[in-house]
């Protein structure tokens, strides 16, 4: 018996949802599109730099050096006379550590069909809890003290995101709205806790609205550079390990199977016997765990103390969104995107030689490149639309010609 095996023509396909079309467009683009996206964003950024009367080549060279990439890839045009390459790279990797985790905090729920905008809040909750554990229990030995701080912070992040997951599961409340609201709760909570008279304010200087300093026993060991000069701590390897955990969780566990099934098609998942609402809750909690861990590694790795102004200024959790988008919500992609953004972030701030390029300008350049990347990633679908519109315009023009000829 031979059943026909004709492929399904376009006319038979039901019109797919936006998310599915985006997914297809992204997969069709494969690895080329994210690279192209980044290149385009850098080109556009360069044009703006040129428009302001600066030399884009100098600016990017300054950022490259500021990020310490010279240490990895020594380029002949190296003009860095100070030779801080190793230090700069260690600082880039410090930022990369955080971005990997805040990126995973967005990527994981994305695979379950959820958009976690709350990475910043979950990160802050992790910071706060890690600070509290680090300041307290000062008599403990290092290993249990660090483990307790990291574990408690990750758990707190999980609970924080879990609230949004629970609301989604129980009432259908949209996770975008609830995570944004939870961000503000975390930000104002941090303001209160670290502020004057707050429960976690430091005891030495009542005038300073900042937390106490983490005890030496809770400092994560530094393996590259000097602990006094904010060297790179072993938290970096924890972040790398989390990339592996992310992949294993998604692809080698039943939980990951459920998360992916729900993310692609909740109706089919429910039909398969999967508890969709539980998956939402679990995916959000795991996501918050990643973000909380990021907060812990920052607090116990190099920050040690945090003020209310720091709470307000912190943006690293939001950057995780750009990292996950550029990394296409995969482990490898998130790792690479985190490194890119880490370099960009550090290379335009403290690492940048002010003689090469004005750092205040450079900071704006970073924000712009971030924005453009997010825009371009979201534009996949828009580009498809333009492509179709172009064809329509062309055929209309052809008809006009035909009409004129007739």
């Amino acid at each position, binding site marked *: 018996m031979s059943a*026909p*095996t004709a492929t399904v*023509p376009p006319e038979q396909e039901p019109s797919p949802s936006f998310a*599915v079309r985006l997914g297809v467009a992204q997969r069709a683009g494969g690895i080329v599109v994210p690279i192209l996206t980044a290149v385009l964003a850098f080109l556009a950024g360069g044009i703006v730099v040129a428009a302001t009367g600066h030399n884009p080549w100098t600016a990017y060279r300054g950022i490259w050096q500021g990020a310490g990439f010279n240490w990895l890839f020594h380029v002949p045009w190296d003009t860095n006379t100070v030779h801080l390459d190793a230090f700069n790279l260690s600082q880039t990797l410090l930022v990369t550590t955080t971005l990997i985790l805040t990126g995973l905090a967005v990527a994981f729920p994305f695979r379950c069909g959820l958009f976690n905008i709350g990475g910043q809040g979950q990160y802050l909750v992790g910071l706060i809890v890690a600070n509290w554990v680090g300041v307290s229990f000062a008599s403990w030995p290092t290993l249990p003290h660090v483990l307790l701080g990291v574990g408690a912070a990750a758990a707190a992040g999980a609970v924080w995101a879990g609230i949004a997951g629970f609301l989604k599961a129980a009432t259908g409340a949209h996770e975008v709205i609830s995570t944004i609201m939870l961000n503000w709760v975390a930000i104002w909570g941090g303001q209160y806790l670290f502020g004057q008279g707050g429960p976690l304010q430091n005891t030495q200087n009542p005038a300073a609205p900042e937390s106490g300093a983490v005890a030496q026993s809770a400092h994560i060991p530094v393996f590259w550079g000097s602990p006094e000069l904010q060297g790179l701590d072993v938290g970096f390897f924890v972040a790398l390990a989390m990339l592996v955990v992310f992949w294993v969780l998604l692809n080698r566990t039943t939980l990951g199977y459920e998360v992916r*099934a729900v993310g692609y*098609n909740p109706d089919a998942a429910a039909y*398969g016997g999967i508890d969709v609402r539980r998956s939402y809750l679990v995916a959000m909690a795991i996501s918050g765990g990643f973000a909380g861990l990021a907060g812990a590694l920052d607090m116990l790795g190099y920050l040690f103390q945090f003020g209310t102004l720091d709470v307000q200024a912190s943006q690293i959790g939001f950057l995780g969104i750009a990292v996950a988008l550029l990394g296409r919500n995969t482990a490898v992609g998130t790792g690479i995107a985190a490194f890119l953004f880490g370099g960009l972030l550090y290379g335009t701030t403290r690492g940048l030689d002010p003689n090469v390029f004005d750092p205040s300008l450079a900071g704006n350049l970073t924000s712009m490149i971030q924005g453009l990347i997010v825009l371009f990633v979201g534009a996949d679908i828009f580009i498809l639309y333009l492509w179709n519109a172009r064809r329509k315009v062309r055929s209309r023009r052809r008809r006009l010609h*035909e009409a004129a000829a007739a």
Partner: protein
Amino acid sequence: MTEQTVLELRGITKRYPGIVANDHVDFDLRAGEVHALLGENGAGKSTLMNVLYGLTKADEGETIVRGRPVSFSSARDAIAAGIGMVHQHFMLIPVMTVAENIVLGVEPSRNGVLLDEADAERRVAELSRQFGLAVEPGALVSTISVGQQQRVEILKALYRGAEILVLDEPTAVLTPQEAAELFEIVRSLKADGKSVVFISHKLNEVLEVADRITVLRRGRRIDTVPREGATEEGLARMMVGREVLLRVDKAPPAPAEVALEVEDLHVRDDRGLEKVRGVSFSVRRGEIVGIAGVDGNGQTELVEAITGLRAPESGRIAVAGTTLHGRVTARRMLDAGVGHIPEDRQRRGLVLEFTIAENLALHDYHRPPDSRRGWLFPARLLERAARLIAEFDIRGGGPLTPARALSGGNQQKVVVAREVARNPAVLVAAQPTRGLDVGAIEYVHRRLLAERDTGHAILLVSLELDEVLSLADRILVLYEGRIVGEHAAGASEAEVGFEMLGGRRQAA
């Protein structure tokens, strides 16, 4: 009757990435003729008509209307040229009246601004008399039946001066009675000199209504034949390209013990409306029980309740002799031995982005051998997939092919393979052949019968009355959430169709 050609499509070619939907197709329509376009799903019928109607642009070929070459860029151009199309899915506004819908866009107005309601209704009434299409001009569209909505669509086209009418799968949504009425309408349109393109994949109705029949297969025109001398077998062979067994050969059933028992089941839909109102029946091992009914009479909710996807309001469900108490979930039902071929394989039956192997594991991924203590073993999934792909003749890909890449028929084979391979006590098949072509339908029917013959209980829910009549050993008619009739195999279409519309049976 004039033999004048009103419409001609010459060498129409339309390519989509990876497929030629129309490959130099010729088609012509004479004045006062019904010309059927017959082909399986995906044969290119809709593409051809979309080209004609200006919805898509052909890559090659020309369209000639009444001897003049034309090039339509939108449906408006086509309408202006006297072509009207009635789509499979109606494009009516439910909150407006019949008359308002018909005149929409070309309304008669008072003082150039206000809609002249009375005039609109008068014109519509006149039109409906002229063509023998009975409608009530003042009724809201949301309150009239599907068959009447279709008449409104036809009137809409006629109101815009259509001389050529394209009916795209017009009977897909109709009951047998409504279909018979539609055929009458088509004949009266013909008598009035209109020309009709009748798109269908159903052989019997094409033979009933058409003057000439053009068969498409995989984008190519196979032949155009007059109705006289055409047979179902011959047309099916042209459609599929090989001999097809049109009639289901089945042995008498050997019903054994009860596998599924439903008692006084009440189910509400998402809006809180009671869609299943006290249904009781049972299905025995070794028999197929068919549920016939017009769409929307509670079939979906009934199936969802039996498969654990929707909590029933009240009632009792027992599978293989065990009553399920308390909160019933899909997984509990699966574990109790209910298999389910869902009515919408793309929305529910498959995760299209998943591979075939992952889709085949959808019910069993959480237990050995697929996984142990939460760890998934992809190699085991692949093993099963390789086995089932061979056993169920799934074509077009291997275990790692995403389900999206398969044709509709092969996607359904994946669903059938998954459900049948679990060896369920009772298999609920909801519209198992919807959207499939003749060859794949034959496959699914044979599989269902084979399952029955190996002692499985099957509950077949279908909107295709033919399917229920030819497969089921017992037929239940569902109307407004109640079972209004029960028939043995061999019941006539008229009998069952009458009850599907809510007609009461005479003392039987």
